[in-house]
């Protein structure tokens, strides 16, 4: 049982290996392995130095600033924070039902974000591992290697991401630091010229997205046994679903299913999420461990994100993506749908769904409507939940009578997946590292497992010289025996 690897007996007698920080994983993450004298793995932990200043950063500001300010929490998924905060502030201003123009514009913005985020992850962060092999030549195992070996795939990745960014620019008003979504609605519609600008490329984007699903599928098929088994673990799942059970990445009720597929709760209003989800603190981690309240902290941890969403929904409301969902769930008697590396396939199905949803929205005349904002009876508390690229994202605020935010609580996708990522790397450590001399290729197996979740820990700054990649081998006393540093910078500095 992988849970055995959470805490070793007599750790002072063991050798320690730290992978810090993780490459292709944003922000500050570190894995520590404790090994005995025969290189057997005794303890594996993923430590994430999560910045806990989010709430303090937001508290004390007027509520209407939140949708803009929260984008600065994370340079990787600012649109997800923008929309989650906006949904919470809809409740604060008493906007129980947005206008069709506002809701559809927000959905369009969200699908633009999903498309660009999933494209970046699959084509540029994961494809080097998947196309070349987890322990292939490290010098080749990067996006440049992909550009050289698979130039068309690499170019499609760039253009898919660019298209998603254009959708964001036109709906949020700016390429970054957008202001499009406001409490109670949006502050601009989509002009017909803007719509036509996006429409001219959308069919190509859908075609490339369909190809991407097939590429993800082929990679799985070519290495079926490896992909099925790699870092595999059983987990409960949590996501939003629409009232009719459809995948809905923007809004819905909470659905949770246990490891055996039994529904634990369904269509639960997220306004009182704390009645279903609690967070546990562990002394060795800065990041909390959420769990389902009814199952308790030991048994109640769960997984969120593409793999869970594709498996949990009853259908995907766009035709190509739903066809791919059914094919994915049926593949190998359903085993791919429970595989850690099946996440890449599921992620591409979601990307296809977003491309199709963008096309449908662009043909909807509501996008150019003039009714942009509504309001109602002012409330003290607002909760906004969205399915962000990496999983469920919760924003929760309390606002006083002077319109100032006095309390904020955020549970980001990567926090939901904290225990799940630990489970994945413990399985990988058992499968591939136990009893073997560690090499870069073997250590990369750990990163491959974490990368499947695309954790975004982007609370770090991005100044030049701030993010060296370090792998350290330490002895039992913590002294450095060996280290490898790859600095990040520009050639002439």
């Amino acid at each position: 049982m992988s849970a055995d690897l959470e805490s070793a007996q007599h750790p002072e007698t063991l050798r320690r290996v730290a992978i810090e920080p993780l490459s292709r994983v944003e922000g500050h993450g570190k894995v520590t392995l404790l090994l005995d004298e025969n290189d057997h793995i005794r303890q594996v932990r993923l430590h994430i130095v999560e910045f806990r200043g989010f709430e303090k950063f937001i508290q004390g500001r007027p509520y209407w600033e939140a949708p803009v300010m929260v984008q600065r929490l994370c340079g990787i998924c600012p649109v997800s924070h923008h929309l989650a905060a906006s949904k919470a502030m809809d409740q604060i201003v008493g906007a129980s039902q947005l206008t069709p123009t506002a809701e559809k514009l927000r959905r369009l913005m969200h699908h633009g974000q999903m498309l660009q985020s999933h494209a970046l992850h699959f084509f540029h962060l994961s494809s080097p591992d998947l196309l070349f092999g987890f322990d292939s030549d490290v010098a080749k195992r990067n996006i440049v290697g992909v550009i050289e070996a698979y130039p068309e795939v690499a170019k499609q990745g760039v253009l898919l991401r660019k298209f998603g960014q254009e959708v964001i620019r036109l709906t949020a008003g700016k390429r970054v630091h957008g202001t499009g979504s406001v409490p109670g609605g949006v502050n601009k519609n989509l002009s017909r010229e803007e719509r036509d600008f996006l429409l001219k490329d959308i069919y190509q984007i859908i075609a490339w997205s369909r190809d991407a699903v097939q590429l993800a599928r082929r990679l799985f098929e070519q290495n079926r046994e490896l992909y099925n088994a790699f870092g595999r673990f059983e987990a409960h799942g949590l996501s939003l679903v629409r009232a009719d059970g459809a995948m809905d990445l923007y809004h819905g009720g909470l659905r949770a299913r246990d490891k055996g597929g039994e529904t634990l709760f369904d269509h639960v209003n997220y306004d009182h999420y704390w009645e279903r989800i609690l967070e546990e603190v562990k002394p060795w981690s800065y990041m909390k461990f959420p769990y389902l309240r009814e199952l308790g902290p030991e048994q109640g941890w769960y997984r969120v994100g593409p793999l869970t969403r594709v498996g949990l929904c009853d259908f995907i409301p766009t035709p190509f993506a739903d066809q791919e969902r059914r094919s994915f769930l049926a593949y190998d008697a359903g085993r791919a749908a429970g595989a850690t590396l099946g996440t890449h396939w599921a992620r591409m199905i979601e990307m296809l769904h977003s491309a199709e949803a963008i096309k449908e929205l662009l043909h909807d005349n509501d996008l150019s409507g003039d009714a942009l904002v509504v309001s109602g009876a002012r409330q003290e508390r607002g909760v906004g939940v969205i399915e962000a690229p990496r999983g469920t994202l919760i924003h929760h605020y309390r606002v006083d009578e002077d319109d100032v935010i006095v309390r904020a609580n955020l549970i980001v996708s990567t926090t939901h997946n904290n225990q799940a990522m630990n489970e994945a790397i413990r399985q990988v450590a058992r499968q591939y590292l136990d009893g073997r001399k560690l090499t870069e290729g073997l250590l990369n197996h750990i990163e491959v497992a974490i990368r499947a979740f695309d954790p975004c820990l982007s609370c770090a700054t991005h100044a030049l010289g701030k993010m060296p990649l370090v792998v350290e081998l330490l002895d039992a006393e913590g002294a450095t025996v060996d280290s490898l540093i790859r600095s990040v910078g520009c050639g002439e500095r």
Partner: protein
Amino acid sequence: MNPPTLIIGIGNPSRGDDALGPLAIERLEALALPGVELLTDYQLQVEYALDLQGRERVIFIDAAASGPEPFAYGLVTAVEDASYSSHELSPGALLHAYQKLYGEPPPAWVMAIRGYGFGLGEGLTGQAAGNLEAALAAMMEVK
């Protein structure tokens, strides 16, 4: 037709001296320089290669956590570095990706303005503010 000069300011405006890049862009915007396009973002990613197309020169402005004060300004060339494996590319890595995708990139420079504090919610430090002024003055001379 793209304007011949592209200047990209990199950084998070709410993380102390990480705001140096976006603040520099704000100041340059006020000057309405002809033939210059200004962009800002939290970090560079591979799709910025598309923005580099058709340019005569590119300047990246970023905060530097270490290095010379008040700034270091220099030519940057295409280089394959470890930033390929993260959610952000270094300027040199972006040029390298451009080279592989589209051929020889336009000549590019980095203005690395020295910063000191990068905490969320912090303002610009006094020292960094001075460095920003020096960097902008130098850029005006280069222009």
